[in-house]
C-alpha cells in the first residue's frame, strides 16, 4: 500500500481541474452566454453528465477491480435511483398543474 501512495495522484489532479473547468463553463453559459433557455439547459445537463462520468473514472475507482461485478451492481442500482429521482420529480411536479 505504502508504495502506491507515494506516487503523485495525477488522475485526481486532472479530474479535479476538469471538474472546475466544466463548472466554470456551465456558470458562463448560465450567466453570460445569452443563449435561449432551452439551449442553456441542454448545455448544463450535458456538462453535468460529462462531469459525472469524469468523477466516476478519476475519483471513484471505477476501473480498479479484478472483475467488474461490484461496479456493475452499484451502477445499475444508482441508475435506478437516479431515474426515479429525476423522472419521478418531473412527473410529480408537472402533472396536475396545467
Amino acid at each position, binding site marked *: *500500500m505504502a508504495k502506491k501512495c507515494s506516487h503523485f495522484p495525477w488522475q485526481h489532479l486532472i479530474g479535479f481541474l476538469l471538474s472546475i473547468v466544466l463548472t466554470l463553463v456551465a456558470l458562463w453559459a448560465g450567466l453570460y452566454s445569452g443563449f435561449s433557455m432551452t439551449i442553456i439547459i441542454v448545455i448544463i445537463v450535458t456538462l453535468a453528465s460529462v462531469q459525472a462520468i469524469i468523477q466516476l473514472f478519476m475519483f471513484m475507482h471505477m476501473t480498479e477491480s479484478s472483475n467488474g461485478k461490484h461496479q456493475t451492481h452499484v451502477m445499475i*442500482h*444508482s441508475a435506478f*435511483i437516479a431515474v*426515479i429521482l429525476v423522472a419521478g420529480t418531473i412527473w410529480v411536479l408537472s402533472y396536475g398543474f396545467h
Partner: protein
Amino acid sequence: MKWDEFFVTGDPFIYAADASIVFTSIGIVFVLTYYKKWKWLWSEWLTTVDHKKIGIMYIIAAVLMLFRGGVDALLMRAQITAPGSEILKSQHYNEIFTTHGTIMIIFMAMPFLIGLINFAVPLQIGARDVAYPYLNAVSFWTFFFGAMLFNISFVIGGSPSAGWTSYVPLAGEELSPGPGQNYYLLGLQIAGIGTLLTGINFLVTILKMRAPGMSIIRMPMFTWSTLITMILIIFAFPVLTVALALMTFDRLFGSHFLTLADGGLPMLWLNLFWIWGHPEVYIVILPAFGIFSEIISTFARKTLFGYKAMVWSMVSIAGLSFIVWVHHFFTMGANAVVNSFFSITTMAIAIPTGVKIFNWLFTLYKGRIKITSAMLWSLAFIPNFTIGGVTGVMLAMAAADYQYHNTYFLVSHFHYVLISGTVFACFAGLYFWYPKMFGHRLNERIGKWSFWLFMIGFNVCFFPMYFLGLDGMPRRIYTYEWADGWFDLNVVATIGAIGMAIGFVLLIYNIYWSFRYAERETTGDPWDGRTLEWSTHTPVPFYNFAIIPEVSGLDAYSRMKRDPAQEKKKEYKPIHMPNYSGKPIFMSVAFFISGFGLVFEWWWMAILGLIGVLAMLLLRSFDYDDGYYVPVDEVERIEKSYE
C-alpha cells in the same frame, strides 16, 4: 448586530436555560479539573477511533438529545392541555415543535441506533474494528458538533420555527428572517456529513470484514438490517444534502431555487425533502427491526423464524421506500394518476412488514420465553407498532388522506411507529447490550417499572390523538377554543405524557443505580446469547477478539457452545490496530465555526472555519499512519487477566 439580538432575551424559560447551561458547564469543568480527568478524557475518549467507545459516545449524546426533545414535548403538552392557555407564546411554541421534531429524528433516533450499530455490529461479525476507524471518529464528531450548532440556537440567535420539514415559502428569507432557519440548514448539513460517512463505513465493514465462514446468509439479523440501512443512507442522504444546499443558497446568497418569485419552485423542496425523508424513516426503523429480531430470538431461545423471508422483506421495504415519497403531500393537488400510483406503492409496504410481524410471532411460538426488560420492550413493540402500521395504511389512501392530512391523526400515526418502533428498540437494545458495554446489567425491577410506565403512558398519550385528529384538531396549533371540544382528550394525552416522562426518569435512575450497586458481570454471556458479540470477554478488550472466531452457520455462538471441541487451538498472533487521532475533533470544531459564521452571515468566520477544515484534510493526506501491532505477549497477558 446588538448583543440583545445575538442572545435570545425576554422569556423566563430561556433565562432559566441560560443559567442551567452556564452552571452545567462550570460544573463539568470543575469536576474534570478536581478529579484531574482532562488528560483521561482527551486520550481515552475524545481522540478515540475504537468503535465501542464511539458507539457509547453516540448513545450518551442521543440520551441527552432525548432529554431535550422530551422537555420540548412536555412544554408543548403543557401549552395545549387547556384551551387558551398562555404558558408559551405562539412564536415560542412554533420554535419548540420545530426543534422537537428535528432533534428527535436527526439527533436522537439516528445517533442512538448508529451508537448501537457501532457497538454491536463489528462484534457480531467477528471484526476488530470498522473498515475506516478514523472516518468513524469523523462521523461521530461531525454529528456531535452539528447537533451542538442546532441546539445553541435557542439561546443564541433564536430557534428555527418553520417545522422540522421546513416547507418553503414559510422557511424562506421573507417569512423566516434571521438566523433561526440557518441553524436548521447548517446543523443538519454538518451532521449529515457524519451520517453519510457512517453509511459508507459500515457498508464496507459488513461486506469486507466478516469472520471466516460467515457468508452473507449467515449474518445475524441486526447486521443484515444495518447493511440494508447503510445502502439506504448512501442513496438517500445526498438528496438531503442537495435540498439543504439549495435552501441555504436561497437564504444566504439570494438565489431563487425554491422561492415564489423569479421562477423558483417551492414544491421542489417538499419533493426533495421527502425523497430523502421517506427512506429516512426506514433508516430509523430497519435497525430497530434488527434489534427486535436479535432480542426475540435470544429470549425465546429459538433460531429466528423465516431468516430468508426476514431478509427479503427488508430488501423490499428498502426498495419500496424510494417510490412512496408523494404520500407526504397528496394534498399538493397532483392528478389522480400520480396520487393513485403513490397510494398503491405505499400500501404495498404493509406486505413485507406484515411478513416480518408474523415471523416474530412464529419465533415466539413454542419458544421457552424469558421475560426480561429487553424482551418486554420487544414484545410491546409488536402490537403497538401494528396499530401504527394499520393507521399508516389508512393514511395511504389518497382520497381519505385529504381528511387526515395535517391533523392529530397523522401526529398519532407517526408517533406510534417511531416510538413503539425506534424508541422501544433503542431502549431494548440498551438493556440488551448494556452488560457488554459497561460490565454490569441494568436492574430488572426498576427496568420493568420504567417499561410499564412508559408503555402505558405512551398509549394514554397518543391513542386519544387519533380521535382528536378525526375531530378535526390540526397539528402545530399553539392554542384552541373551548368551543372546539378538544379539551378532554388533550387532558388525557398530557397525563400519558407525564407517564412517559416518569418512565424515562426511571431509566436514567436505573443507569445510576446499576452503576453503583448492580452485580458485576464477568461471564461475558449474561443472556445465553446466540451471536458472536457474546463470545468475547466482558469488558471487551480493545482488540475485541484475541483469535478471530470461525463461523460454521447461523447463530454462530450457540453452535460453539454446543460443540466446544473446536475452541481448543489458542495460538495468538500479533494484532494490527489503528492509532487514535485528534484530527477528527479539530476538523469538526472547524466545521462548527464555519457553520456558526454562515448562520450569522459573518463571512470572515465562515471562511476561517473552512480553512481549518481544509487544513485538517491536508494534514490527514500527508499522514502515513499505518497503525501499530499489539505483540503476542501483551495479548497473552490481557487474555490471562480475564481468567
